[in-house]
């Protein structure tokens, strides 16, 4: 059992800079939790507090139900993989991986056995004699992971481990780390700024911004039920489109965008909260994949149709991103690659408003 529990964790740096505030999170045993957010959001600071590399200003940290606030990093039984790998340059791969065990005075044959097993798992058996400088980025990353797994720690911490790798290798290592998680059945906390990594790897994702946790949920719940505008815009690529407007009451509930281009009834929506937002500013959020090009005259009650002029169209091969202006806001639609429009051509778009999200204009929380 290795459960990591953060209670009201706060970090204040010199000069009263608040880096992290009020983080409450329980990472269950064997769970893979990803901390994600833009740079400077406090995700790495949170991870470093779990590791013991940063002091906790306020709040409590428990690992395995033991209070860890004042425990030295070496006594927390954790392992960490760093962004720059942090391999010891003067030691070869074997010694790098064995270092933690040697310090802890493991018997020699046990060290050898564990390093060999880890090297085999990671496919680096033939590199054990090499120095880090003679390794490629991907190999260094494997050694760094190897150094973590030989110790069999209670908790694995990853601090943006893949961001120094090229795109192809990153995808490969991503799946390898996921596999490793299944194989080791270990508790893992993983920090990244890449929402794709977060979505593909995490059992649960913690979305952070400006030192505050915005939402903790499973990847799909974050995608379909974002708690607020920030989460909605951060998760998903390309990110969600937001159009300013108002909820009005005019023969029933209606949404009207600020210029009036979009104007549709919301009666069929079961969302009761919308009636509380009458005459308030709201953001309408539509995912790029929820736009479609109007091709026939099928009329559905929940379809909203509008016309716009194409700005740029980006063919990606399997799909095409189309940029256009809707109500003064730059929007992007993700459509089938068979559509190929010239710049400045006029196109009819449709979207299903039952798939749209509404966010409060002030609090930016989802309505």
């Amino acid at each position, binding site marked *: 059992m290795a459960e990591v529990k953060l209670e009201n964790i706060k970090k204040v740096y010199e000069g009263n800079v608040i880096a992290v505030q009020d983080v409450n999170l329980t990472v269950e045993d064997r769970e893979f939790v990803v901390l994600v957010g833009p740079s400077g959001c406090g995700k790495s600071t949170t991870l470093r507090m779990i590791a013991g590399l940063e002091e906790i200003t306020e709040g409590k940290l428990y690992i395995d139900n033991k209070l860890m606030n004042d425990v030295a990093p070496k006594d927390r039984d954790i*392992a*960490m993989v760093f*962004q720059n790998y942090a391999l*010891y340059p003067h030691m070869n791969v074997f010694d790098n991986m064995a270092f933690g065990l040697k310090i*802890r005075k493991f018997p020699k044959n046990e060290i050898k056995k564990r390093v060999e097993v880890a090297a085999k798992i990671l496919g680096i058996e033939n590199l054990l004699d090499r120095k880090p400088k003679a390794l490629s980025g991907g190999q260094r990353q494997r050694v760094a992971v190897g*150094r973590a797994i030989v110790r069999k720690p209670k908790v694995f911490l990853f601090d943006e481990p893949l961001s120094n790798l090229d795109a192809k290798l990153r995808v490969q290592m991503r799946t390898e780390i996921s596999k490793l998680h299944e194989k080791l059945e270990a508790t893992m906390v993983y920090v990244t700024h890449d929402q794709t990594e977060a979505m593909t790897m995490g059992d649960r994702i913690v979305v952070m911004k400006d030192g505050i946790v915005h939402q903790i949920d499973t990847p799909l719940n974050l995608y379909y039920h974002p708690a607020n505008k920030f989460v909605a815009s951060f998760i998903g690529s390309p990110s969600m489109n937001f159009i300013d407007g108002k909820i009005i009451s005019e023969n029933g509930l209606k949404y009207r965008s600020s210029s009036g281009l979009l104007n549709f009834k919301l009666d069929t929506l079961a969302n009761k909260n919308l009636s509380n937002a009458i005459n308030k500013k709201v953001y309408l959020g539509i995912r790029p994949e929820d736009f479609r090009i109007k091709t026939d005259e099928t009329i559905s009650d929940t379809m909203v149709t509008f016309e716009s002029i194409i700005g740029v169209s980006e063919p990606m091969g399997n799909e095409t991103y189309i940029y256009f202006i809707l109500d003064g806001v730059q929007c992007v639609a993700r459509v089938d690659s068979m559509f190929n429009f010239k710049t400045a051509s006029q196109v009819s778009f449709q979207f299903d408003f039952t798939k749209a999200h509404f966010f409060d204009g002030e609090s930016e929380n989802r309505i």
Partner: protein
Amino acid sequence: MKENKLVNFFIYLFLILFTIAALYPVINVFSISLRPGDKLLSTSLEIIPDNATLKSYIELFAEREFLLWVWNSTFISFIVTLTGVVLASTAGYALSRFNFIGKQISMMSIITTQMFPATMLLLPMYIMLIELGLSNSYFGIIIVYTSTALPFCVWQMKGYYDTIPFSLEEAARIDGCTRFQAFYKIILPLAAPALVITALFSFMTAWSEYIVAAQILQDTKLYTLPIGLKSFQSNLTTEWGLYAAASLIVSIPVVILFIILSKWLVSGLTLGSVKG
């Protein structure tokens, strides 16, 4: 091609001239050390004179206190080097890695001490050592040498530590090291080039220093090599043969040290420009 040859010619001419300028005194001193009697000047251009003799060398070791001075210098230089390396490596680490009250001030005052010429500090230091009863002692001169060498060494070490990523120590601390273990098991081995420079600088400060030693050490039994050498000169005569022989012997350890450490020196001086 022609132009290249011409340029090369001048480059070599330039280098040869300066090599001669650098080597001539050494060769000359070697030649003097082999001459019988105390002839400083000679019209002969021979490096090894006709009547060459090792008499000066033999006298140096057999009849003079030269070996004692060698021992004194070696002992003092060794202690200064050891103290310099231990203090500079730890102080530099603290200045590089920790934030503490007075850090800026201490760094500034360390560098300020380098702005005074040694001769200016001579008098206050001398008075201080007298008051402490440390003049004319090993301990006194070791304190003076260490304190003159340390400021440069501390800054030098701090600068080098600054180039070593923090994450290496952090990884070590998570791997099971205490802060101090992370320092001496991971950081110190990586700082070897800087340590070598620190050691060399401390050693040279003590090995070839004359002015301070001449003031503090009066007992001939405590003489270091530079003052010992000078004692071959008196008001009326100078024993040039002995002087030359001793000079050569004094410089041998330094030359050997430089040759052994040159690999480290080059990598130490270029570090920071290329990393990876």
